[in-house]
């Protein structure tokens, strides 16, 4: 028999230092996805005094299972990839305020003031916003109340919990169809509910879903309410053509209606595009001097891990140049 091995992963063992509100850092990085982590690596190598403020590390990558477009790996498990990022970042002993959301960013003279939901205010000379995106909610009655009890936003995380169950998927694009496929794989009966007229997912995905007999399609329908006391028991949908409502008995609902940028801390500070994404130039500069943007929260097209990581690196180097040119470093 093979003996098991003992593999040490120090990133699991060591808690990072907390950032200090009394210190004015050269750079604060907001966010913990690939853009933020890559920025942290580059900034550290430029000997900048920095800190990271984030809810968690990994960002949306944690919601994926396998990654097949990260250079150097034909296929790599998303968790393994994020863990390797994590270990890399933690090896630098950067102060991290983990589990913390930024509520507001202000600029006072040449200093950024970052207010967080733990009531603290952190300061820095330059700032990188890499707060990513989050799933857009349906904003219907019952949704908030039943999150985690039938209402789900991540098929990779939660699809296995719906083995052989009835599930509604709200959405009509690629993520809705990918979710449907994940659910079909575990034997669920799937009802897709599309708000707009016509399914927008790639033809190949649509074909895979539509060829099974375990799928019902409600095009041009709106989710009106999610019902249930302890758990989701039904979803009421309305035909947007004839306004007729129908109650669908279900064990759960996956909400796959797109993502919205986590721009709240800066929405009154920097210029955003019509989707609420932070507008950046090719050096990751925003409309506010000293504030740089990277990753999915920005208007840079193609939300990909490799692009986010590249943008993070660029933002860190641009922040470094900014501080040098301003004689702030």
């Amino acid at each position, binding site marked *: 028999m093979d*003996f*098991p*091995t*003992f*593999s*040490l*992963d120090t990133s*699991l063992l060591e808690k990072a230092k907390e950032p200090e509100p009394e210190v004015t850092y050269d750079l604060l990085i907001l966010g913990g996805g690939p853009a933020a982590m890559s920025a942290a690596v580059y900034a550290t190598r430029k000997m900048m005094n920095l800190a990271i403020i984030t809810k968690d590390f990994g960002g949306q990558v944690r919601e994926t299972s396998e990654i097949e477009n990260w250079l150097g790996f034909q296929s790599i498990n998303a968790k393994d990839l994020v863990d390797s990022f994590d270990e890399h970042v933690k090896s630098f002993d950067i102060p991290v305020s983990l589990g913390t959301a930024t509520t507001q960013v202000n600029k006072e003279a040449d200093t950024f003031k970052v207010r967080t939901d733990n009531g603290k205010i952190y300061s820095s000379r330059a700032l990188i916003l890499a707060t990513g995106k989050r799933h857009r909610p349906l904003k219907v009655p019952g949704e908030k109340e039943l999150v985690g009890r039938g209402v789900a936003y991540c098929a990779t995380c939660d699809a296995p919990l719906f083995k052989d169950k009835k599930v509604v998927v709200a959405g009509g694009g690629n993520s809705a169809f990918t979710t449907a496929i994940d659910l079909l794989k575990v034997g669920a009966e799937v009802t897709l509910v599309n708000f707009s007229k016509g399914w927008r997912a790639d033809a190949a995905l649509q074909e895979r879903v539509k060829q099974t007999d375990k799928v019902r399609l409600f095009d041009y329908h709106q989710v009106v309410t999610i019902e249930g006391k302890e758990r989701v028991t039904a979803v009421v949908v309305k035909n947007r053509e004839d306004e007729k409502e129908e109650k669908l008995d279900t064990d759960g609902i996956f909400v796959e209606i797109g993502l919205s940028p986590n721009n709240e801390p800066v929405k009154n500070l920097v210029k955003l595009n019509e989707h609420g994404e932070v507008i950046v130039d090719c050096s990751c500069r925003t409309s506010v001097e000293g504030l740089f943007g990277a990753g999915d929260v920005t208007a840079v097209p193609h939300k990909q891990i490799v692009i986010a990581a590249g943008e993070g690196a660029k933002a860190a180097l641009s922040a470094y140049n900014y501080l040098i040119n301003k004689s702030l470093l």
Partner: protein
Amino acid sequence: MEILKEKDREKLIEIFKKIDKDVKIVMFTQEMECPHCEMTRMMLEEVSGLSDKLSLEVHDFVAEAELAKKYGVDKIPATVLFGDRDYGIRFYGVPAGYEFNVLIQDIMDVGKRDPGLSKEVMSELAKVDRPVHLQVLISPT
């Protein structure tokens, strides 16, 4: 035969420098060791040798059945961690793979006499007014 990788051994020596209080590791095996008992014992011998704050006692589950009973150990390999007192920490089976990190983390927590939980969690836990037997079942993959 050395169990730990050289690189990991060096890292552990550094990590264990943060321990400021003694940790006693008690391990139960038996004379006719199964491969997993032997593996666990050899690993613990190596780990406990990496800091002077760590000590290891190895006992025979069969010959010292009374002692095993006292610790509530009913299967082997069993690893028990002590600080100022018995915190109820038991590992059964080989703490291999990812679980090796859990063992090291527990050694650190006991060595610092600090479970690393927030004040909120600690005050919630303080409300527990009867013995609770928590068992986490894991696979080594």
